[in-house]
């Protein structure tokens, strides 16, 4: 697998797939997609990078430990549940902030942050599993 062609293509593939995973994540509310699927796509992207450049390469590229990504995702998801409490509504009542920016309609919402949290947990946890399985003591 470790051919020149693969090693050359892998970074581009990874970048594209990561971008695509974010696209799938964000469009999830209205079209097929969402945090879980997006997360899985991103994990595949890292897997491809890992096959080409090894675990150490992925770890360098991620900067932080994948488990930290998962943990921050869980934190974000839980935090997105709380704002409704301060407004005296039941927990998890979704909050929406819609506005126009340079003519584009933008809708920010707590479910969106929740979904980003899901995405990060999936990315972090499964990447962590895959990387630690792939890792060898010799690495």
């Amino acid at each position, binding site marked *: 697998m470790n051919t020149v062609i693969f090693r050359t293509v892998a970074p581009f593939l990874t970048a594209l797939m990561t971008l695509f995973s974010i696209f799938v994540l964000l469009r*999830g*509310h*209205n*079209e*097929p*997609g*969402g*945090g*879980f*699927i997006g997360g*899985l*796509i991103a*994990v*595949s992207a890292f*897997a491809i990078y890992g096959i080409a450049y090894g675990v150490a390469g992925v770890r360098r590229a991620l900067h932080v430990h*994948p*488990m930290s990504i*998962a*943990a921050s*995702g*869980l934190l974000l*998801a*839980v935090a997105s*549940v709380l704002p409704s409490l301060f407004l005296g509504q039941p927990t*998890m009542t*979704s909050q*929406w902030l819609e506005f126009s920016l340079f003519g584009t309609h933008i*809708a920010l*919402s707590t*479910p*969106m942050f*929740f*979904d980003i*949290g*899901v995405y990060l*947990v*999936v990315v*972090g*946890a*499964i990447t*962590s*599993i*895959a990387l*630690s*399985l*792939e890792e060898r003591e010799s690495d």
Partner: protein
Amino acid sequence: MPLSGNEATVWALLLPFAAAALGPVLTHRLKHNAAWILAVFPAFIFIHFLSYVPMVAAGQTFTVSYEWIPTFGITFSFYIDGLSTLFALLVSGIGTLVVLYAGGYLKGHTQQGIFFTYLLLFMGAMLGVVTADNMITLFVYWELTSITSFLLIGFDHLRTASRRSALQALVVTGAGGMALLAGFLLVYLASGTWQMSELLTNPDVLRSSSLYLPIFILICLGAFTKSAQFPFHFWLPNAMEAPTPVSAYLHSATMVKAGVYLLMRMQPVMGGTEIWMTVLPFFGGLTLVIGTYLGLRQTDLKLILAYTTVASLGLLVMLTGSSSPHAIQGAVLYLFAHSLFKGGLFMAAGTVDHEAGTRDIRKLGGLRHAMPITFSATVLAALSMAGLPPLFGFVAKEVLYDGLWHAHSGGIFWAFTGVVGNSMMFALAAIVAIKPFLGPKVETPKHAHEGPLMLYAGPVVLSVAGLIAGLFVASTGEWLVNPMTSAIAGHSVTKELHLIPAHINAALFLSLLTIALGSTLFYFSDQLRSFVDRTLKIIGWGPDKGFDQFINATVRLSAFVTRTVQTGDMVMYMRAAFIALIFTLYTPMIITGSWPSLSQFELVTLTEAGIIAVALVGLYAVLTAKNRVTAMVSLGISGFSVAVIYLLFGAPDLSFTQFMVETLSVVILALVMTRLNLQPSDSRSVASKLLDSSLATLTGLGFALTLMSVTQQPFDASLSEFFTAFSRTIAHGRNIVNVILVDFRGFDTIGEISVVMVTGLCVLALIRVRPVSSKNNEETTTQIKQEAKS
């Protein structure tokens, strides 16, 4: 009114917890002198409860209540009457002195700050126990005393003996706590109230209930374990592993009396029955005699005192169990006197240990010149313990003998038990006061001299309080003893107390008999010690040993269960999981007979048939694959066909996810395979292949049948209709699946992502475990076993 009302009481009860938080901070700055500031908190509480005394003496009671779990009628509430007032005064008053004492005793200890924290946490818990009105409130505080006691006994956690004692105390009192909770639940079932105060207004509801016997047994278990009654007495002497301030406070003056407190609290509603007046005096009397008998064997000052504490608790249970107002008055007097003299004696013993370097009476002697203040305080307290005039203990002993003598049934027998126990107690009091201080000077490990103010303040104040309470016993009786007696008896008791017996009666003779017997026992104390030693060697087994056997048996049982269930054989795990699945899938269909009907099936279209054919090809490839990697990749073929089927039936999200999951599982499985040193091909025998394939077929068939029968049920579309109708309007999303995941059922998703997260962590940990470390594990286990044995 008490100082600024009942709300102030709640603040006062929470005060120790605030002080606990301050402990380490203050100690960091002020070293041991932080004790002076920390002692202000319990002193304030003491003064606060003192302000209740006149009103409580006039027969008033107070309740204060906050809602806690309204659905179940559970409140956070407190009840102040004669019983709780005296207890609260003892807890806070002795607590003040103990905090000061701990300041001197642990001076220079690196962990002194955290010690203050534990001690003050305990104080808060104990105050809660004795003032709680709601039974659940009481239970929570009760458990908190067990936990803080665990922390305090195990304070010196680097020593095995400390850890063992702490665990033992926690197991025994914790188990009793569970029984108590069950007892309270039954009380609620029988009476319909959680409030002690309401229970007291309806005193016959429990006695007439059919649940009386189970309630009685459970409450007794709770009280007997906490108050170290035979056969649960063994944890208390072992708890002497704790630093002396803890022994003085928890394991003599306060916590161990929580069980007695509970029995006294329940006396008006549960006492007076045949079983109450038989079981309590029996176990109490037994504990009294056994406790003092075992005490005679000891040479360690703290252990002598610990066994006399066990005995005193037995005496209190015996008196409470007699249910007569007179005996109860004796119990109250004795409890009060005991807290004063025993707290003082423990602190004095600790001071001797601290200054002379040993607590062994055989290595101590002639300390009276070196430690005159400690000596005087010890003598004063020991006189009270021995029950000699004019000290408070004397009055207590007179009244309790009188109460026992006039008990409803078996008065002479109980009085005789009391004399036997008390005379041994007299001998032990004499040993504690005389052996270390009188006689020729013995060379001690440290050059003995008087301790600092912090160390002798406690013993002096407590023993002098015992003297004053005795000299002015009429006032003590009127303000403190009689209100408490009334609360326990359930009706007003106004018997005047006199220091000098008003007339010659049986009690006076019993006292004289006690003194005569006790002096004789003291004279022969050395011979007695070896005699008791010999008898115990002949018996050879005790509950203390039994506890170790119990713990060892538990460890062995869990090791056995683990070995049996966790064989480490993956094939066995999979078989077990599949067999369980088969049971779950088929049982409902067999029991209800709801097999799917096969006639309702529409024919599949050509496209669908094509995809199914691809899936079957994948399956064939899996079954005939030469090596494992090929099999895994082939499995992916079936998985992708399933994903295509999802797509055909209009579930793009599901299909999408299926694609990703299939891809990633092949990747991860391949990674796992590279880590396991497996043979490349399957090497199962024909028989096990047959078994496994039939299990797999049965499971697959079971899933198919279940799905078929589910789809043949009439479909209730109200949920899908709801989601279709409101997904856009309420949740602003057109993708219903996603809206359900992140909004409608978002709470489920939180649970799921937490599981994903934890799974990730577990896998990470599992991969880090190397074969080498499993050997380490075995070493640790054997180490623990060895420690438990020793």
